[in-house]
């Protein structure tokens, strides 16, 4: 799967898993996921997202991962992480 197709898929996953009121196309690659000026997600959303990613792609995001903050920065970083670690 090309990176753009995966990016679109992850954007859709974000919207459906978190029941967001935006369209997947409206989430740009560099939009911050957690700050107010971005999607404004909170820590419960982070858990829900991590669980959905593990279910769909088999990518387990562990609490010990030092890069977690970086992984959850935006759609670009999240997709990159999934692409590198996916098992399904």
């Amino acid at each position, binding site marked *: 799967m090309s990176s753009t197709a995966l990016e679109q898929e992850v954007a859709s996953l974000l919207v459906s898993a978190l029941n967001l009121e935006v369209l997947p196309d409206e989430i740009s690659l560099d939009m911050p996921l957690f700050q107010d000026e971005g999607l404004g997600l*909170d820590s419960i959303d*982070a*858990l829900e997202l*991590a*669980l959905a990613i593990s279910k769909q792609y088999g990518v387990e995001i*562990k609490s010990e991962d030092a890069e977690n903050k970086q992984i959850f920065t935006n759609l670009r970083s999240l997709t990159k992480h999934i692409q590198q670690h996916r098992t399904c």
Partner: protein
Amino acid sequence: MEKPVWLQYKERSNLVALRFISWVTLKISRRLSYAMLYPICSYYVLFYWKGNRVSRNYLTKILQRKITWKDTFQHYLRFAKNLIDRLHFMSAHETHYHIKRHDFGIIDALVEKNQGCLLMSAHMGSFEVLRALAAKKSIAVKLLMYQENAKRVQQIFQQVNPNFLDDILPIGSPNTLLKAKELVDSGHFIGILGDRASLNEKTVIVDFLGEAAFFPQGPILLASLLKVPLVLFFGINHGDGSYDVYFEKLADCIELPRERVAKEELIQYWMQRYADRIAHHLTISPFNWFNFYDFWKK
């Protein structure tokens, strides 16, 4: 973004006094430290008007009569004694306490199955009294906690028990709840005080002591994601070294619908039940309420 009401109130304490009283209670006697609280609480009754007002507002609702300065004094005194007791529980000097457990079978059954759970209390009575029980039963409990306020008290706790922070999961980082999930999956208990919403947190309106109050949605959302039983815990402090500790199972598993409105309605339903249980225990032990800010503020 405006801070939640409870974060707008400054911590009212003095580090030197706190250190001294913690030394007295742990090294000399709890009775003496209790005695020292009388002038201290009198001082607060005389000069901490903001606190007096919120205490009176709450006490009027729960006692349904005219509140005098003696009631407010009792309220402060119970809070201060509770703080001293927490030091004892934290440092494992809890030998002279009488702790009566109610429905502890709920906990035994979970431990036997190595089943984790979400253990929800409120800012009332004592959560630390659980340490006294947990140590005896080797239950592993980590408390999800907002760490921004009460810095001075935490400093003292850390002095009394250097491992204090090991039992805390600081709310706010995306990692925290991942950690909580890993812990419950391996049979740990996660403690949470579900009566205060943190910054930006979604809330629901529940009836609490006859007036609308905002309760956070987080605890129910968390329970639904962790997929573990939600157990209520109330450590009622009688102010004389005796405690009644209640365990009440709220739900074996909380499942929320996807649809937004229905989801929020169900969260509201569970938080209302939680608020009703708090109200029940406060009606019996009114001075155990330790939210010294305008809890009902819109």
